[in-house]
């Protein structure tokens, strides 16, 4: 079985957030519940200022710290494909995984709504989920954290499990430009206008993602944590860049 991975070419990324909104709509996320996010950082002083941005999905780590800390095994690593998923029927909402994720990709949406008025009250659920938008997708699999979550659980990017897991057997590179595969490509990859994202099998030595990682020296975010992300970044000095994370603003400017 494949070990799915993503490659994001920061030279091509335009910081447009299409990945963010496509993910939000495909997976019926709440406003601000950016499973996939684009993070902006600014450095320098007028007139020479550098603005950088950084697209950040869940890393679907090989050794995910969120999985090891979960006291109920609700968060787990699917051996078939390498997805890191949450079983909403087991999650107790202790948020330890949120605390233990170095990449900040997990969400507990019972908190106060980011955008008021609260859209959950506009489209209330009659099925004990957080909400029920009329445009929600048909996919629904709480045991994998797919669909709209019930109350009191943590949600996260699924690598679009509901699409990827149905890819034809033997598919190595899930490329949206291959017509018969486009429905099996994660939403953020499929929508990306500058084609900065690639999705494929990291276990397949000759996959295109492995070629890109090798040729363009792919790096993993915060590799020192040992989480071993399955998302790689390519960067050649364009505006998008792997951020140092360290807060960049001087204290007198903040």
């Amino acid at each position, binding site marked *: 079985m494949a070990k799915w991975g993503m490659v994001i070419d920061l030279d091509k990324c335009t910081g447009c957030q299409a990945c963010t909104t496509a993910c939000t709509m495909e997976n019926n996320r709440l406003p*601000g*519940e950016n499973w996939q*996010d*684009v*993070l*902006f*950082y*600014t450095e320098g002083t007028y007139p020479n200022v550098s603005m950088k*941005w*950084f697209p*950040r999905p869940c890393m679907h780590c090989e050794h995910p*710290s969120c*999985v*090891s*800390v*979960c*006291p*109920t*095994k*609700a968060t787990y690593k699917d051996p078939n494909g390498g997805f890191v998923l949450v079983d909403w029927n*087991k*999650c*107790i*909402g*202790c*948020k*330890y995984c*949120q*605390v*233990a*994720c*170095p*990449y*900040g*990709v*997990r*969400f*507990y*949406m*019972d*908190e*106060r*709504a980011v955008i008021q008025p609260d859209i959950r009250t506009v489209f209330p659920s009659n099925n004990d989920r957080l909400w029920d938008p009329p445009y929600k997708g048909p996919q629904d699999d709480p045991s994998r954290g797919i669909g709209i979550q019930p*109350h*009191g*659980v*943590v949600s996260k990017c699924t690598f679009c499990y509901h699409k990827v897991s149905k890819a034809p057997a033997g598919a190595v590179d899930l490329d949206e430009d291959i017509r018969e595969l486009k429905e099996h490509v994660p939403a953020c990859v499929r929508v990306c206008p500058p084609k900065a994202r690639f999705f494929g099998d990291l276990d397949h030595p000759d996959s295109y993602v492995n070629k890109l990682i090798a040729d363009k020296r792919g790096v993993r*975010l*915060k590799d020192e*944590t*040992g989480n071993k992300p399955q998302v790689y970044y390519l960067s050649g000095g364009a505006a998008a860049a792997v*951020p140092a*994370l*360290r*807060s*960049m*603003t001087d204290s007198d400017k*903040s």
Partner: protein
Amino acid sequence: MTKTTTKEIGTLILALIGVGIVGYLVMQTLGGQGHAAFNTTNLGVHWGLPIVVYDYFLLTSTGLAMIAALAILFGSETFRPIVKRAAWLALAGLAGGVVVLMLELGHPLRALVAIPTSFAFESPLYWKAMTIGVYVLALLILIARMLKADWDAKALRGHAILILVLAMFITAAAGVVYGSNSFRPFWASGDIPVAFIFESLLGGLAFIYFFTYLAYAFDAEAMPEGVKRLFNGALPGLFALAIFVHLLFVLARMVNGLYGNVEGLQVWQHMVTSPLFLAEIFIGLLLPLILMLLAGTRTRPWAQALAALLVMNALLISRYEYIIGGQLVPMFKGTWAPDLLSYMPSTTEWLLLLLAILVSNAINAFGELTLRLGRER
């Protein structure tokens, strides 16, 4: 009824009324808004005051249990007057913390089933939760075995060793929950479990002092001779030592934090100048240390009760600053979050602290009434 008993009944009734009122208020906000009533957010502060309260009460509980166990093992007759109270207080404190935890969890009832059946051996929380279960049982049995006024310390030695091990394990596991997050340097440190154990012990001592005085309605004259002897004998020194050791751990972390440039440690730069931190160090720890060292004050009941109260508060601040401080640097939030998050507990969260205090007090007062803690002779 003695005067003391009357006051105990009063305490119990007051606490129960408090539990009723605060519980009602909490149910109102939580029932209406759910966890939107908390000020925790996805920007980074995932664990807010309720977790602080829970851990504070849990670690105090294990501290009390450790003291009870150590007293049985090494304390001979000198420590006898506080053993039973410490054991019961350990249960009472834990109950307050657990109530708050249950209100903080997304699925508290599910947790009761899902954790034991998960066999999540990799998770420190799994071990912590499972051990707490055994620990509660062990404490209950211990108290049952001490129901007779002439309980024999020697016969309880095995039991005490078990409780000591469980309490230390829980405390250490609580440390690992935070200390193992290598990417949060504010938390991550190999000595955190050890620091937690010493902090627990200090909390236990402070609680013993305070709640013993409370049991006698702060009337030192009413206290039995054995208690007086202990309080004016070995205990002030131990208390001072515990304060000192805890202070060392805090200051060591502070120095490391101030010198370190690692992402996350910059929280210390902000923290050391905050009034809360200064109050913790100077009023909450140094002042009690002095009170417990000076010959003129160390045996004064007011000084002991005051020192205990100050230390109890300092430990709560310490717990708060540690748990919140480790989350103040947002992880990959870009401009969506400030460089350093700010967090203030919501009214509901403060109410949960109050609820924990009241629940613990109610249970403790109930124990004082029915079990005649430390007044066997």
